[in-house]
């Protein structure tokens, strides 16, 4: 029989994990969902964020979340530069589908190998005084190393949601997703808007990377496990819908946590891809898709 407290703990852990997944996937929800750029290197950028957090934290002892927020502008600049390259090489010539995909595959691989060459395959972790502590409500545990990332992730998702729906630039990003030509006719430059949006997507990777290394130790190839998760979340959430993506993140987190608890942790990696496969086969528009 499944005991009630085990179930409650699994659900609570799943919700916290799912919220964090939303922070991991939100950059891709912008880049892939809104701009149709298949950035499979997104998890690799998140790992770079983790390593930046680790380096600064181990040298100066700053809080990882603060580091993530502080380096986000640098990541934004990096994202803009990558988009310029991507645009010049693929989008302008209309070859983005096959070549663009292989391009990001190559970028992902280069990031991973360079990290391995420079820092090795050791697991790295950060220090912060809240990491070891746990809050308990009744028999349900909320470890702070999960709760802090969850809170930051919710704040990040909310901020991106407000940005996309309330500000001029945010609406321009949504406009470029809906109708690029119409945006051009309104006198706006779609390339400039997309470059801004891509930068924003990569900037979230700095914060997500800091959260990732708070949750647990990180080594360069961890990013690969997140490819399936982020795409599962974005596709299940309906491509670019921020609310949908958040709910999809929670669903995936809870399912993964249940599978780890009741079946075994070694089966958890297949969950995301199973969810992704089922979604693609049964309802490609996702739960909240703009059909």
């Amino acid at each position: 029989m499944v005991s009630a407290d085990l179930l409650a703990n699994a659900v609570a852990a799943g919700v916290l994990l799912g919220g964090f997944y939303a922070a991991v996937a939100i950059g891709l929800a912008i880049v892939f969902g809104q701009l149709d750029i298949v950035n499979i290197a997104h998890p690799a950028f998140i790992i770079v964020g983790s390593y930046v957090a680790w380096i600064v934290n181990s040298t100066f002892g700053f809080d990882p979340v603060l580091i993530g927020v502080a380096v986000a502008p640098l990541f934004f600049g990096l994202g803009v530069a990558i988009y310029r390259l991507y645009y010049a090489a693929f989008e302008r010539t209309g070859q983005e589908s096959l070549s663009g995909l292989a391009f990001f595959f190559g970028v992902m691989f280069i990031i991973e190998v360079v990290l391995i060459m420079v820092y090795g395959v050791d697991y790295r972790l950060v220090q912060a005084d809240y990491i070891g502590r746990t809050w308990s409500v009744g028999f349900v545990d909320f470890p702070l190393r999960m709760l802090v990332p969850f809170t930051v992730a919710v704040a990040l998702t909310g901020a991106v949601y407000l940005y996309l729906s309330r500000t001029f630039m945010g609406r321009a990003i949504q406009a470029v997703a809906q109708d690029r030509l119409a945006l051009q006719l309104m006198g706006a430059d779609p390339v400039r808007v997309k470059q801004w949006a891509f930068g924003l997507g990569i900037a979230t990777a700095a914060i997500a990377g800091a959260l990732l290394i708070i949750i647990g130790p990180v080594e360069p190839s961890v990013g690969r496990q997140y490819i399936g998760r982020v795409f599962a979340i974005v596709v299940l959430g309906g491509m670019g819908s921020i609310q949908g993506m958040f709910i999809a993140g929670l669903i995936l987190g809870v399912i993964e946590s249940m599978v780890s608890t009741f079946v075994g942790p070694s089966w958890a990696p297949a969950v995301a891809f199973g969810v992704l496969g089922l979604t693609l086969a049964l309802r490609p528009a996702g739960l909240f898709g703009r059909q």
Partner: protein
Amino acid sequence: MSSAVFWGTLAAVFAAGLALTGLVENEYYYNALYLILQAMLMAVAWNILGGFTGYVNFGSAGFFAMGAYTTVALHKALGLPLPLLILAGGAVGGLVGLGVGYLTLRLKGVYFAIATLAMAIVVETLINNWTYVGGARGFYILTPEKHLWFDSYIQMLFVVMLLLTLAAVAVSRILNSSRLGRGLAAIRDDEIAAECAGVPTLKLKLISASVMGAMMGVAGAPFPFFVTFVDPVSAFNLFIAVNAIAMPMIGGTAHWIGPVIGALLVGTTQEVVKVTVSSEMNVLIVGIMLVLFITLAPQGIVGLAQRLRARGSR
């Protein structure tokens, strides 16, 4: 290249490979050549679906590992000889390829690529949890005593891999230059238009996906005997998938010779760098070559050559 020249070249290469085993003792060369040939076989296979038909497969390592683990399972259960194991690996890979072919009914472009990646991870999780073939701990396999008339087992494996790769290149050329290949090219350029023009798109996609899967399974089948220790990390190595994509992309995807050129260039560079610099650098170099080539020469080396020739004749 005319047919006579093509078959003549294949025969000459095979004869040269056989002659090599009589002349050179040093096992390192067979190791290096085996790895280059294995990568070439994977690249030729990837190109049949990716290059000819236009469906990007990120799950190459999954097919490769299926071939390798078919060998492990059947070797442990029945102790079959190598030729039968290779056939079995090809059959398993081909069947899974057929399944992937059916995926193309619903999934196009990016979604198909991600689904193949998903397939590879799901298979990896299955293998990790399948204790009969060693699970996550891996599986040791003893090198068989017998190796025909060759001096060592690795020499025989090298000749086997040479034969398999040459066969794959021949199949790839036949597919590319036949009526079937023109159908595949039509699907790549515009699937709806091809369907309207009477190309049996589903049938062709299924053939192309099955052939790709079978070749990759065949490439993986001798792998356990080559490394003598297989675990999911080595069999599902991302490096295998990256190589399988990078080599055709660098050589040129539209023509059958593209992956062959790409594999010769990248594979040789890798082996040289592995010896002279370091084995991490050898991995990095593929990534860099891939990114450079697709940004600067999207048609690959074959495309560059064709452009040069067009300019020369003008």
